[in-house]
């Protein structure tokens, strides 16, 4: 989690959309996480990533000092240079912070819109098979369409500024929300459905009292994956739509063209931290909301 992949993918969430086991497949009977295990995990939770971080920094120095010569070093300046120029320099730092603020704005608006629209679409699909058949292929298309191809259309209708950036972010974050929510809504036990049917429950009551709560764990999996993707979406959006105040994506492209390696890497790290922060936040929120009754299978 603490590592930063050097290329375009600046956040760590793995392949999107593959949902975790649904609540329906929970093991029955007394299942409680061995309470000692959590504490014990804490050490490995900190030590493991720290060890990887150390190895990563070591590798970084190795590449920067060992493989690159003086002229090439701008591509990957050593970590202490990145920190000195990109972070400790007050002017650079404050401009990066204002870019971060703007990227956060795009990320959070995009993610919020994706969550609202995604959940509504998934709920609609869960209500009738024909709606699912009609919409799901298009959700896949949205997931797979190269954003690059959309830039002319988006800019024509929404201009080159904030709105288009947010739309790119929504497009990129959308699919895991739809697929995980739908999966969750459909994973409700048949017996539970029949119990509701016996009492002639209307579809809204059934949705509210049965399907949505049952779908929550899988919805949160989707939100968490989408949260990581929404940071990528915001940065990609800023990369293409540069009008108005710069975000992290805007400055990334500037530093790339100016060969300012130190600031480029400082910005990349910041973007990663943002991705990790939203990812961790949704993990925490999920535990708060469903942790009491839902224990995902661990290892």
């Amino acid at each position, binding site marked *: 989690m603490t590592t930063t992949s050097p290329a375009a993918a600046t956040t760590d969430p793995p392949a999107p959309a593959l949902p975790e086991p649904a*609540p329906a497949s*929970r093991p*029955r*009977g*007394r*299942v*409680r996480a061995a309470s000692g295990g959590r504490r014990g995990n804490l050490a490995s939770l900190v030590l493991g990533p720290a060890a990887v971080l150390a190895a990563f920094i070591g590798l970084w120095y190795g590449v920067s000092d060992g493989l690159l010569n003086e002229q090439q070093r701008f591509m990957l300046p050593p970590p202490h240079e990145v920190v000195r120029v990109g972070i400790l320099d007050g002017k650079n730092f404050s401009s990066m912070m204002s870019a971060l603020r703007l990227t956060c704005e795009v990320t959070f608006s995009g993610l919020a819109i994706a969550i609202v629209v995604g959940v509504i679409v998934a709920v609609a699909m869960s209500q009738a098979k024909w709606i699912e058949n009609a919409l799901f292929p298009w959700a896949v298309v949205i997931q797979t369409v190269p954003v690059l191809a959309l830039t002319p259309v988006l800019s024509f209708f929404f201009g080159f500024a904030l709105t288009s950036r947010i739309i790119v972010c929504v497009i990129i974050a959308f699919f895991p929300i739809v697929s995980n929510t739908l999966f969750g809504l459909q994973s409700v*036990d048949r*017996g*539970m459905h*029949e*119990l*509701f*049917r*016996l*009492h002639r*429950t209307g579809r809204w*009551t059934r949705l509210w*009292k*049965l399907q949505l*709560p*049952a779908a*929550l764990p899988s919805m949160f999996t989707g939100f968490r994956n989408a949260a990581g993707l929404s940071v990528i979406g915001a940065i990609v959006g800023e990369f293409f739509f540069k009008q108005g105040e710069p975000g992290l994506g805007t400055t990334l492209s500037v530093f790339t063209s100016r060969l300012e390696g130190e600031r480029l890497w400082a910005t990349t790290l910041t973007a990663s931290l943002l991705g990790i922060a939203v990812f961790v936040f949704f993990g925490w929120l999920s535990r708060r909301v*469903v942790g*009491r*009754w*839902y*224990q995902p299978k661990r290892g």
Partner: protein
Amino acid sequence: MTITHPGPADDAADTAAAADTAGASPDGAGATPALRFAGVRKRFRDGTVALVDTDLAVRPGEFVSVVGPSGCGKSTLLRIASGLEKATDGTVDVASAGVGYVFQDATLLPWRTVRGNVRLLAELEHLDAAERERRVDEAIGLVGLGGFEKHLPHELSGGMRMRTSLARSLVLDPSIFLFDEPFGALDEITRERLNDELLRMFVLRRFAALFITHSVAEAVFLSTRVVVMSGRPGRVKADLAVPFAYPRAPQLRYSPEFAALCGEVSHHLRSQD
């Protein structure tokens, strides 16, 4: 709690009176059945014929158990009685709208506490809040879950989950109860204890019950009548009255009469006709 007895003669024949009537049908043969199947046939869309010519009636206050080989259509019978499934031919009369259905699985909502789960059906049926809470209290007391109201299903044993499921149905005070192997997944001791308690509730509430089980002893211990079904396609092969009076003591299980009746039921279950 207002118990809606379908039969008019029922009020007099309340617990005490019924208890010392050592008869197979405590409410007399004249009462209109709470539940009646006549010539019921069920053929599924894929061509499987699950039931043929099934005739069966459960009168108010009767506890009828059904035993039969696996796959002979017992669950199908209950599903038809509850309206989850439609009969292909024949008639099914259900005297009351209030039918309680207890599944083999407890089918509890994992995010709701015991109390929340017990309350569920009362919510779905829009009972008024004060009445609902009163009934929830009563049902939780009746199944012996007092003190566990705040527990979540995953914190309960299988037996307690089943009690929660029972309490959930009891809240609506149904006059007809359908049970589909509710204790099949429990160990012997828990099962016997729940049998004792189910009978206590039966004596108290006098619902009509149709109870499916694989255990001959369970069927005989609980019922006023035991119905034996043939292999698929299922039909009623034998219908035996159980003469023991309610309330039944747990020790009844060790009596020779009990063993003899179990033997008879097993015999019918095994015979090839």
